[in-house]
């Protein structure tokens, strides 16, 4: 019995010892971080040289970390501030940024999706940079729709600085339009024109022996399904929320008509049903591979056509890609979603001045243009945007989309959850259209009522 106790005690001692070894090891493992903190504490407030700014980015392009590190290299040389670029996957970024904001354990600066800024700002873990934005030209250096993404409804302040911008617009195959006998100049001038164009494209069964469908868009699997359908809702005079952002209006008669425009395309066989089972990237690849005549995409698609190493493009599609502004509705000029990413400074940052110096550098017009070009995006600032918009007719279409047609959502903290509720119902409605064919107003109304009910619940909950 005594020996049994001795053995048991040894086992406990082994466990305790392991814990202490582990604890000691952790201190050394984290030494780098401690060094950074002590350096910042020791450095005089205005001497930023030698400080390290940690920047979280998402996988924005083919070599996200290397590309960003190259972009900031001149800044590092000039200021002596080291920038440590760290990659955070889009799949986990919401959790990561939220955890860092509430715990105070994060980097100095993070990229955040434009529609996420209000949610993150509401957590209270981010700096209000209102008093600094005059150094980068303030609101007047940005298009109003883009600047709005740095604000939070009901709060006086600026919680992010727009970094890069994207907008969605029409991509088409010039050779397909030619085969259908449609003039690209008028093919997408209105929703009716778009429908008529797709009807004619339906008769073009193949191009060069390869089958081609008139139009395709993703369904429930697309993370950005709401961005794809809301333009039709906006064109019909609908909106996502009431003007005071307190109630959902996604079940209004106008919104029903907007969604019906999309489901009618499915019902009429103009929208390839098989695309509804794919996500956005997969549909994009179908267009690039030459299987779709028309689709709606962002500026990165245009950029990728110039990259010889992107072998998702078929030779014919690459040669014949064209871009047109989004078609207008009966009472509108045609809307599109504009998004992109902003830069936010964590309250817990030990190097706020160095962090702001980095944001100032990344807001320089030339740097903006450089970075946006690398990723196939548009700069966030007006001046470089305008320059980019004059490169060619295709870029002009995107510039017009950003400048004249761009629209985003209400800057409220609850938007991400509301968007998710809308996404689920939009996906179900499209699925129903794929199964039943034409949907009635009542079918769509019933689905949107569910979305509105869920959204109202979320808005009431958060408000309370």
């Amino acid at each position: 019995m005594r020996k049994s106790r001795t053995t048991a005690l040894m086992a406990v001692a082994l466990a305790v010892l392991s814990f202490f070894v582990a604890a000691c090891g952790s201190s050394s493992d984290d030494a780098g971080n401690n060094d950074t903190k002590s350096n910042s504490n020791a450095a005089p407030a205005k001497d930023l040289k030698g400080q390290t700014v940690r920047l979280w980015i998402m996988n924005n392009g083919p070599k996200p970390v290397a590309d960003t590190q190259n972009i900031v290299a001149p800044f590092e040389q000039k200021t002596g501030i080291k920038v440590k670029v760290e990659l955070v996957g889009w799949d986990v970024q919401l959790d990561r940024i939220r955890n860092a904001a509430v715990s105070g354990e994060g980097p100095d600066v993070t990229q955040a999706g434009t529609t996420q800024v209000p949610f993150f700002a509401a957590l209270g873990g981010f700096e209000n940079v209102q008093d600094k934005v005059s150094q980068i030209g303030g609101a007047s250096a940005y298009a109003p729709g883009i600047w709005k993404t740095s604000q939070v409804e009901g709060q006086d302040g600026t919680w992010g600085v727009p970094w890069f911008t994207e907008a969605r617009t029409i991509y088409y195959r010039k050779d397909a339009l030619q085969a259908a006998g449609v003039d690209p100049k008028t093919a997408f001038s209105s929703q009716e024109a778009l429908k008529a164009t797709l009807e004619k494209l339906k008769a073009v069964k193949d191009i060069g022996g390869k089958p081609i469908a008139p139009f395709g868009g993703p369904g429930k699997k697309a993370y950005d399904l709401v961005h794809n359908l809301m333009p039709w809702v906006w064109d019909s005079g609908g909106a996502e929320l009431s003007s005071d952002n307190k109630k959902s209006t996604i079940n209004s008669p106008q919104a029903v008509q907007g969604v019906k425009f999309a489901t009618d395309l499915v019902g009429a066989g103009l929208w390839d049903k098989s695309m509804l089972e794919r996500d956005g990237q997969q549909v994009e690849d179908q267009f690039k591979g030459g299987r779709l005549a028309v689709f709606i995409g962002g500026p990165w698609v245009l950029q990728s056509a110039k990259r010889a190493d992107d072998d998702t493009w078929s030779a014919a599609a690459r040669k014949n890609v064209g871009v047109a502004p989004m078609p207008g509705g009966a009472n509108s000029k045609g809307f599109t979603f504009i998004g992109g990413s902003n830069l936010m400074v964590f309250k817990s940052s030990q190097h706020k001045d160095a962090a702001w110096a980095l944001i100032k550098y990344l807001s320089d017009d030339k740097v903006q243009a450089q970075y946006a070009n690398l990723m196939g995006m548009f700069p966030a600032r007006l001046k470089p945007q305008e320059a980019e918009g004059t490169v060619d007719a295709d870029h002009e279409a995107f510039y017009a989309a950003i400048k004249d047609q761009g629209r985003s959502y209400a800057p409220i903290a609850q938007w991400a959850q509301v968007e998710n509720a809308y996404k689920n119902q939009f996906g179900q409605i499209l699925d129903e259209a794929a199964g039943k064919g034409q949907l009635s107003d009542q079918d769509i109304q019933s689905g949107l009522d569910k979305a509105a009910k869920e959204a109202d619940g979320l808005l009431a909950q958060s408000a309370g």
Partner: protein
Amino acid sequence: MTPRRKKHLTNWGLNALTYAVLIVMLSPILWLIASSLQTRGQLASGDYDLLHPTVSAFKQMWESVDFGKYLTNSLIICTAAALLATAFAASAGYALARLPFRGQKAFGVGVVGTQLVPGSMFLLPVFLGFIWLKQNTPIHLFDTHIGMILIYTAFFTPVAIWFMRYFFLAIPPELEEAAMVDGCTRFGAFWRIVLPSAAPGLVATFVYAFLLAWDELLFVTALTANRAETIPVGIHNFIGNYSEEYAQLMAAGVVSTIPVMLAFFATQRWLVQGLTAGAVKG
């Protein structure tokens, strides 16, 4: 039909069924390997060219994402956690099997009971605990190898204890008694006689804990920020909002499967022996 012919046909049918099931089970792995040897364009279009494979994705995956970091982190964290869990389980499992002590039954039930509570229930307290430790003490567990090793050790030790208990029960107590008659202490008998006899069980427990840790995503997502991320987190980086690198994703899938395959095949004999022994000899 003669009975011999009937038996022959039955055997043939069962063999065919076995191979059919095997093919179904292996097809995802074969698909993964075949896809990793194609270009992004071929995967996007579905036009596989199996006769002209390319290893370009295997080269690119290390450049576009710091995959080496995730692989190294996974190897360090999972190996250390599996070793610690096995060591603790061997000690505690032996105590449960051989050394009667007050509250032994309650302890045994407690060990099993920990498995009844979903692991996600612990996520928030552990996260807050790690943050508190980092901000108030010199013990830094958030986003460190040590933090993840401790978490995985804590999670996988209870089930490992139960495994090891069964393995020790299967070893005749007479072996230890004979060793102690020959002058060994209890610990000497445990170290020299019992542990070597339980080697298949130790290997099985180690590999089992290693495999569980290798695939864990929830805790590593919440408890790391950048330095201690493992493969399940890193592999997501091939999927972006604006581009998806399918071929590189598949190549990363193949590379991340290799250590698991190696661990399994290197220990297959003991693993099967150990798991079956533990299962039937309680």
